[in-house]
């Protein structure tokens, strides 16, 4: 057995674990600058997580095993997803075991359990958050799969490593299908990660929150794990976008590629963060009943991408 896929695998997981809170810190920092506020610094989310680990866990009396199990499951799924996506190198031990569709299913499992945990305690907010989350999920998943299928058609494979290789090394062709898929992917990523205009991660306002409503009852290390996992989810969506649409510079099975891949990843995430902040600052949070339209247009873009692959390429 070759050792370097294993080494890159471990390096990548560690990188995702540490970079995810820093990426969130970067997004908050740019947002603060744009709004003329002083930011708390790049490492504040990391400090928040560490602080939460030292806090005591307060459990509701009627909490079942689902409530206690969910944080570990959600965190575990995020780490597994971090091991599958070829972020630093396409030659990973686990990259061959799962493709993009499995990745969507993994995120679905995490979401399913979060929704269950939201309902488990029996508070009104948890149930409301769960039902909203599932509504958004039912709309965003078809669009997500459609966008993935479009990219897979171009790359002739659903394997993420193969997609990165084909798009990164093929001759440069202007592809309207990929542009449409990228547009759809950005909309889906915004909805899946609960960013503005679908959900506001910074608020605990009763009537508008979705993700925060589900995890309202969590505290201590449980909350830390869930927060960390949701930061990783945003990071993973950003790197999934990078793998599928801008894969230039991802390493291929030798340790020499890793430093370059790492620097390029940071540079790409730097830009991705700025783009996300510009989207979020430019838009206001939409009413929940406008979300189907928002995700409907994501589905439209993804389908148009697939059609334009057949029609125009």
């Amino acid at each position, binding site marked *: 057995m070759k050792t370097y896929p294993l080494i890159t695998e471990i390096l990548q997981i560690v990188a995702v674990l540490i970079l995810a809170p820093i990426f969130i810190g970067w997004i908050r920092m740019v947002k603060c600058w744009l709004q003329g506020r002083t930011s708390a610094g790049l490492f504040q989310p990391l400090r928040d997580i560490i602080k939460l680990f030292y806090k005591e866990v307060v459990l509701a009396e009627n909490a079942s095993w689902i409530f206690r199990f969910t944080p570990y499951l959600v965190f575990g799924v995020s780490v597994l997803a971090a091991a599958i996506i070829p972020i630093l190198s396409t030659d990973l031990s686990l990259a061959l075991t799962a493709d993009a569709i499995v990745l969507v299913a993994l995120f679905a499992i995490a979401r399913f359990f979060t929704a269950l945990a939201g309902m488990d305690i029996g508070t009104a907010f948890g149930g409301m958050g769960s039902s909203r989350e599932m509504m958004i999920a039912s709309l965003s998943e078809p669009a997500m799969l459609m966008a993935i299928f479009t990219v897979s058609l171009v790359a002739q494979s659903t394997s993420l490593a193969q997609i990165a290789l084909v798009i990164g090394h093929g001759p440069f062709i202007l592809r*309207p299908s990929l*542009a*449409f898929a990228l547009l759809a992917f950005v909309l889906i990523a915004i909805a899946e990660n609960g960013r503005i205009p679908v959900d506001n991660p910074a608020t605990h306002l009763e009537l508008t929150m979705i993700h925060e409503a589900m995890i309202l009852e969590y505290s201590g290390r449980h909350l830390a794990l869930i927060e960390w996992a949701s930061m990783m989810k945003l990071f993973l969506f950003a790197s999934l976008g990078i793998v599928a649409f801008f894969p230039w510079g991802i390493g291929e099975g030798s340790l020499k590629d890793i430093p370059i891949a790492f620097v390029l990843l940071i540079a790409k995430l730097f830009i991705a963060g700025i783009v996300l902040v510009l989207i979020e600052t430019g838009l206001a949070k939409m009413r929940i009943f406008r979300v189907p*339209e928002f995700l409907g247009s994501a589905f*439209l873009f993804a*389908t*148009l991408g697939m*059609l334009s692959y057949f*029609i*125009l390429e």
Partner: protein
Amino acid sequence: MTTSLAAQINSVLAALILLTAFGLLVQRRIYGLLHLFAWQGLFLSISTALVGYAAGSHHLYISSILTLALKVILLPYILHALIVRLQIRKEIEAVVNVPTTMLIGIALVIFSYHLTAPIMELSTLVTRSTLAVALATVMLGLLMMITRRHAVTQIIGFLALENGLFFAATSATYGMPLVVELGVALDILIAAFVFGIFFFQIRTTFESLDVNQMAKLKEED
């Protein structure tokens, strides 16, 4: 610039035209519709000039400039002036809700692709692949005229439909003869003036531009 690169850029422009056609279909605000219509005209004009360059048929430059002058500047300006004069501000009511309209639109795109697939096999032109998009734009314009109640929106749908026809002509045959194109351009301009007069007439008669009001014109049984 090589022919294949020109064909690629033309494909991208075709995709953008299709996108604006869908945008017109789902846009609620009337000023947004006007902007989208102007963008569609702009993409059409660039695409026509590109085809003219790639195919070496220089009369397409003239139709490109004509498109730019008429559909990007003059017609949106006339419609804008009309909207200001008629004082239309409220959001537009659609007959079918937006997600359903989108799905119907997607079905229409698949239908036009299916319809033009045999023609694409026969053609040898660089632009043959965009024919399906052109037909889809026509269909989407038609759908827009069906799903909207407001007279001004229906006119924009009609003009978008005409954009699709023009695009079909460039992509299928490298453009109609110049005389025909000049005639069509003039027609559109005259039509815009006639529409303008009609809008005022409809409004003075029914005090609204909702075409459903015209059902009153039917005689009672």
